[in-house]
């Protein structure tokens, strides 16, 4: 029971590490997912191919394998970065493929006539997407994007295995110190709950505010 109070700073560091990984990787995943979704619905064939390849490769690769590829692979090409940054890249790219698909399915819920009307008025592909299609798609993508980011928060635990400071990794130190393993994990689980419930709450608010009116 006193695991938490006696090791508060250790837990705190782990918790912050997970929060940082989650926030940075989410931003990267949302940005890349947005770009890739635009590619996938673009009128330019080579962009569509890029988007499709991106999603197919990243969505079907186990995340652990992706971590290995990034952490061990990139340095071979002379790219040496802090481990935390590598972890953000791996997590962000992996999750962007899911975000991309969530956005694309949202885009598909917007009737085709909306985009056609915009194009027939002389709006470019980018204008059509950003002012007509995406604002309407936004409503229906809030729930799946929320789920994807919650999965991201939990997936960040894999980074611990690659010596990035994060919540789950704290158990190693604690068990070496001889603390009760059950309580160690209970507190770790509560840490994750705080993060994921926070994400849920944010997306619930977004959904109330912008969600599809029924």
């Amino acid at each position: 029971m006193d695991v938490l109070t006696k090791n508060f700073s250790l837990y705190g560091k782990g918790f912050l590490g997970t929060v940082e990984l989650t926030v940075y990787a989410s931003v990267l995943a949302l940005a890349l997912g947005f770009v890739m979704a635009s590619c996938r619905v673009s009128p330019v064939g080579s962009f569509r191919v890029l988007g499709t390849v991106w999603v197919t490769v990243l969505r079907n690769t186990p995340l652990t394998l992706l971590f290995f590829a990034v952490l061990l692979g990139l340095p071979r090409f002379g790219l040496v970065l802090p481990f935390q940054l590598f972890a953000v890249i791996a997590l962000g790219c992996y999750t962007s493929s899911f975000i991309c698909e969530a956005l694309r399915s949202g885009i598909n819920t917007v009737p085709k006539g909306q985009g056609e009307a915009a194009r027939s008025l002389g709006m470019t592909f980018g204008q059509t997407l950003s002012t007509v299609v995406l604002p309407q798609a936004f409503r229906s993508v809030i729930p799946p994007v929320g789920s994807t980011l919650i999965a991201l928060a939990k997936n960040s635990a894999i980074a611990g295995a690659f010596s990035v400071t994060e919540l789950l990794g704290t158990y190693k130190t604690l068990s070496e110190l001889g603390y009760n393993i059950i309580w160690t994990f209970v507190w770790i689980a509560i840490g994750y709950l705080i993060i994921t419930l926070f994400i849920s709450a944010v997306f619930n608010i977004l959904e109330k505010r912008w969600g599809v009116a029924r």
Partner: protein
Amino acid sequence: MAVDPLIELRDVNKHYGKLHVLQGINLTVGRGEVVVVIGPSGSGKSTLCRTMNRLETIESGSIAIDGRPLPEEGKGLAELRAEVGMVFQSFNLFAHKTVLANVSLAQIKVRGRKKEDADKRSHELLDRVGLASQAEKLPAQLSGGQQQRVAIARALAMDPKVMLFDEPTSALDPEMINEVLEVMQQLARDGMTMVVVTHEMGFARSAANRVVFMADGRIIEDRTPDDFFTNPQSDRAKDFLSKILKH
């Protein structure tokens, strides 16, 4: 007529898979002309209409608007589309924007007008289609006839050289058809060049310079409304007219 061609289609062909929807279409629409396109369902009228601003691509032949061939994708195509207004059967108003914003959006994004100038013009156009009081509503709060009139105002806001209408009244309840047709009649009187796919024979008789009859992807007849309605030449047209004039 047709001394000053605004739209020129030459030997246009298109397939959907095995279906040859447009078969060697030749059509010239002169400046200021009103051309009504009629024909049985599936004959390719919508497809023809949509090729004129490249919402549908074609496989062979050429289409020119005001002497300029239709560009491929990109900036040039967007510029050309701004010159060609289009009104759809299902209105397609932007569902998340007010009536006013619907009419102003492309003026701002495409024509680069300031928001105040665009809104001013939009109010004028809404007034012209009899909807000045509805500017702040969302499309879903309007009747079908009102939505379609907003759609016409939205297309007119770009100051197009030509307006394409694809069955603009087919999705409307009977009592709303006339309010839309009246707006279109007025446009025709003002000298707008128009291509109208419609089954409204009254409109064709009173507003059209020419009637183009399509069947199975071909233009079968292309004549004045009087000529066409009183004295159709082909069996397809006779058969079609007997069916629709019965009710």
